[in-house]
């Protein structure tokens, strides 16, 4: 008789039960989306009740929401930087925080070198700073992670920690510990305008944060969806071996991912700079928050990272607005752990990891 053993039927697309995926336990419990929906409804109710007690009206809530999305936009940019690098190289890049710091520091330095006045000079300085940060990021990958690409993920992560420490130390050496000042983009002056719309006030710079943040993310999406290089990078993210077989230079894509992460970090830092006062050590905190946002969004998903950043920013803002701000981070991390436990692969994508 025929040898049926060698006859292969076209495999059906049954997800292979290749050991429990991170969400293996999810099978035994109610749909995680239901849990999330209920939980957020309860949470919002609690926020609303606490706010009522303080005499909050609609404008106060809107204010908190607006505040949250401004900070959240920066978190989102940093988070997207984490995701881009992680997807292509499989590394959590702790040096991302350093890129966030380098952006504004370099921009201020360039701006001063260009005479320290004028919108064109500021734009040029910012662009140059973004470029320079991307170059630094490229160098970081080529000099450290590329040679160590065979090492375990943990080893490579510790390398990025070392890079962060070194870059921050270098920044301390170059710029000293003093805070720097960057003019607001629209007034070109330290004193930024406050706009008032329906009881909600915001700094004019916030519009820039939203606008440039959105532009960057849209640009990134266009890059990934509509350019050859972007598509190649996506291929690497899906399957590195297959991508290599298709003739894609995976290591180059990894370098490019770092450059993109540098761009994202620098843009995030620069748009934030006028409302903060950049110091050499500003990166750690933003890096950590960006990491949280990236994880909350599933670590592999760009929309997830953006959503993660915005949600984190808004939740923090709401929490600090109605309860005790000192526990803001505690709240954020408790939420994060619960989120991870409920659905580790993130909330937006059907989850492969």
């Amino acid at each position, binding site marked *: *008789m*025929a*040898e*049926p*053993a060698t*006859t*292969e*039927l076209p*495999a*059906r*697309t*049954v*997800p*292979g*039960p290749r*050991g*429990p995926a991170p969400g293996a336990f999810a*099978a*035994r419990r109610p749909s995680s989306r239901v849990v999330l929906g209920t939980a957020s409804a309860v949470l919002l109710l609690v926020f609303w009740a606490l706010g009522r007690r303080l005499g909050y009206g609609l404008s106060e809530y809107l204010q908190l929401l607006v505040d949250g999305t401004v900070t959240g936009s920066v978190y989102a940019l940093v988070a997207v930087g984490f995701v881009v690098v992680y997807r292509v190289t499989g590394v959590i890049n702790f040096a991302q925080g350093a890129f966030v710091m380098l952006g504004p520091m370099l921009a201020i330095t360039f701006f001063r070198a260009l005479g320290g006045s004028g919108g064109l000079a500021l734009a040029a300085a910012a662009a140059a700073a973004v470029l320079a940060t991307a170059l630094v990021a490229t160098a970081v990958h080529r000099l450290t992670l590329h040679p160590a690409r065979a090492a375990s993920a943990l080893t490579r992560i510790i390398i990025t920690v070392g890079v962060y420490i070194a870059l921050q130390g270098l920044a301390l050496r170059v710029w000293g510990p003093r805070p720097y000042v960057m003019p607001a983009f629209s007034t070109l002056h330290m004193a930024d305008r406050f706009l008032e719309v329906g009881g909600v006030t915001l700094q004019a710079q916030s519009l820039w944060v939203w606008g440039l943040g959105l532009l960057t993310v849209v640009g990134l999406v266009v890059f990934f969806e509509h350019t050859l290089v972007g598509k190649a990078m996506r291929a690497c993210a899906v399957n590195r071996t297959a991508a290599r077989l298709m003739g894609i230079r995976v290591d180059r894509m990894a370098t490019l991912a770092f450059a993109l992460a540098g761009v994202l970090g620098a843009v995030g830092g620069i748009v934030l700079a006028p409302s903060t006062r950049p110091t050499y050590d500003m990166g750690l905190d933003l890096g950590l928050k960006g990491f949280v946002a990236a994880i909350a969004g599933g670590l592999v998903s760009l929309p997830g990272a953006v959503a993660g950043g915005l949600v984190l920013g808004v939740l923090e803002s709401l929490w600090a607005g109605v309860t005790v701000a000192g526990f803001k981070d505690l709240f954020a991390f408790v939420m994060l752990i619960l989120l991870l436990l409920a659905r580790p692969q993130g909330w937006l994508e*059907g989850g492969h990891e």
Partner: protein
Amino acid sequence: MSQDSLLRVERVTKAFDGLVALSEVSLEVRPGQIKGLIGPNGAGKTTLFNLIACCLAPTAGDIVFCGRSLVGLPPHRAAELGIARTFQNVQVFPGMTVLEHVLVGLHRQAQAGLVACALQTVRLRRTERRLREEAEALLDRLGLLPWAEVPVETLPFGLLRRVELARALAVRPKLLLLDEPGSGLNPTEKQAMSQLVRGLRDEGITVFLVEHDMTMVMGLADEVAVLDHGALLCEGPPHLVQRDPRVVAAYLGEGDDA
């Protein structure tokens, strides 16, 4: 269904995010038999094994082993109840020796809590010595003794299948699940493996195996079940199953005459 079945799969359905991998599958394995499970790729064979080994929980239906339901149990409980398994793509512990693999299999017998381990109690050391002897005996039986102290990553694939088997046997299973024990082996090795499996059956271990190699499974199994597209096609002695037109159709594609 007969009372004397060791394992009973009752109308089991398993779906992944809406995709049905198994639907209403019922079959049984009687003590002392070698039962084969065949079917084209993606038929749900490994999924069924994962359900029996409690690595997955069924969406519906029940799996009964020795008269108790396995549904909802964690995988290590299945092992404790006497279900051991090997894997389609060999799962060994990198960095550990062959002997250590078997010792991990004997883990349950050590009966040693973490505290006892941390303090290296006298009893623990005595047990350890006994386990080591037992492990060596097992390796000897499987012809693995010469490689006892060798880290597994240096071994050829054929031996790895046997290491996995040794590890599974260390659990002293009542039911042994073998996921494609012959794949990746050359004809000689396959022969030896078949021999080994028969020997185990003769010792009273019930064997349930998935195998692609028809010659091997037909020569080995007392009874064969056929899965296709997540459903049980037929079940019976090898020579009958082999002739079943539905089976032939499933393997060669519909419309073709065998």
